[in-house]
């Protein structure tokens, strides 16, 4: 991934900043700049999510693309944030710990690197809340 493509998304990826439509109240993460329901009459503002949520579904990735191959196996999940939106992220826990309904909170972690000397990508992962 190019440096500019990654830097553009730093606020969202580092601090879980998405958006909210002030017309209908819906939250969006990943952020949307157009409300799918209100379209042009929607008024979109930034919103920082509190970072807590619930695992909706998950898998354990055993075979990955080159960027992620040295981190397998890892738990990948769809997490529903308490404010409503869902996102796809890794959960830093043992594969056998993962379950539907598990409570998680977001943390700032290394996600991947572009080769050995390439740019290191940071972003949001989740950890079980009980820890």
């Amino acid at each position, binding site marked *: *991934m190019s440096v500019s493509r990654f830097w553009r998304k730093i606020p969202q990826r580092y601090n879980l900043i998405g958006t909210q439509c002030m017309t209908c109240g819906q939250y969006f993460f990943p952020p949307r700049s157009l409300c799918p329901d209100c379209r042009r009459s929607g008024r979109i503002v930034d919103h920082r999510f509190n970072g807590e949520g619930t695992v909706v579904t998950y*898998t*354990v*990735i055993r075979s990955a*693309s080159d960027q992620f191959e040295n981190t397998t196996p890892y738990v*990948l999940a769809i997490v529903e944030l308490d404010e409503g939106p869902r996102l796809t992220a890794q959960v830093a826990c043992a594969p056998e710990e993962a379950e539907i309904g598990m409570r998680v909170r977001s943390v700032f972690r290394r*996600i991947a690197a572009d080769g050995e000397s390439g740019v290191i990508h940071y972003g949001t992962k989740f950890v079980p809340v009980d820890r």
Partner: protein
Amino acid sequence: MRDVAVVGVGCTEFGERWSASFRDLFVTAGTLALEDAGISGERIDALYVGNMSAGRFIEQEHIGALIADFAGLATNHIPSTRVEAACASGGLAFRQAVIAVASGMEDVVVAAGVEKMTDVGTGVSVDTLAGAADREWEGFAGATFPGLYAMIATDYMHRYPLTREQLAEVAVKNHENGSKNPIAQFQNRITVDTVLSSSLVADPLRLFDCSPITDGAAAVVVVPLERAREFTDSPVRVLASAQASDTIALHDRRDISTLDATVAAGKRALERSRLTHRDIDLVEVHDCFTIAEICAIEDLGFCAKGEAGRLTAEGVTALGGDIPVNPSGGLKACGHPVGATGVKQICEVVTQIRGEAAGRQVDAEIGMTHNVGGTGATVVVHILGA
């Protein structure tokens, strides 16, 4: 709008075709389709080609012009257009050809699909296929394409009584059908044990739940129905063409285990053809993973949600069953050259309706195809009949 018919089909052998280039593949499929329609190249008015990612698989773009050129049509200067919707590129190319003929804009149109996937290593192909989903918000987090379908399977198995063994029966059935298809990548029979003892790719999906990496091409010739008899004694009519879209990312769907785009496209196709499920004699569905076939059968409305696993294990979807699903062997056994798959599905249904499917022949007058892009962000459904 004019009625449209398919008058010629052609398909290469599917597999790891080390000695065949991208160009070899589409020239072979195109030649077979033209021979089948009994026409020569100068009769072609337009060409649509489905291709997902030649840019990453073989570092070649501008596929429309390339194909017209190497098919020997450059001097005729016909319009040639590449169509892309990830794994649904082929079905969408066919739909564009149907629209072009139905509208009266063109008369003799070739719809083709081609993908050459084995010139890159597994890591690159896994990464390229992940581009069918949301690169910024799924791929960035480490989502692979099998991983996304695995999350569908986890959700599905949590909510419905699908067993791991029933899921494996999808692959067993498709290999059985593939063993009777001379173009299939895998022509070997397997057992439930073969699936359950293969390595985990993304829990709960194992290697034998996944369609393979495949080279291949397919092509069909589409003409106005009123002219079809000029080309063949057994034209096959296009009874409906439907397409639907949904969110690019799986996490934004209304329901993780239902492909709403499949529901919408399936409904529209049946409405337009004024047919019901009982009229459909076979269906080629997009089984990129075993769980995808389970969802497809249900979301197309052939049974209620939660029942497809049991019906598969009971043989209802086998060649001799009430509703044969994937007589070709599907993506699992016949292979999945992503851009070609949707066109191959049309070839299979046409071959079945003509009664030319030999060992895998089912009793068929009307058939359906179902081609999915990504995890269900694009779905194309066609119904064809004698």
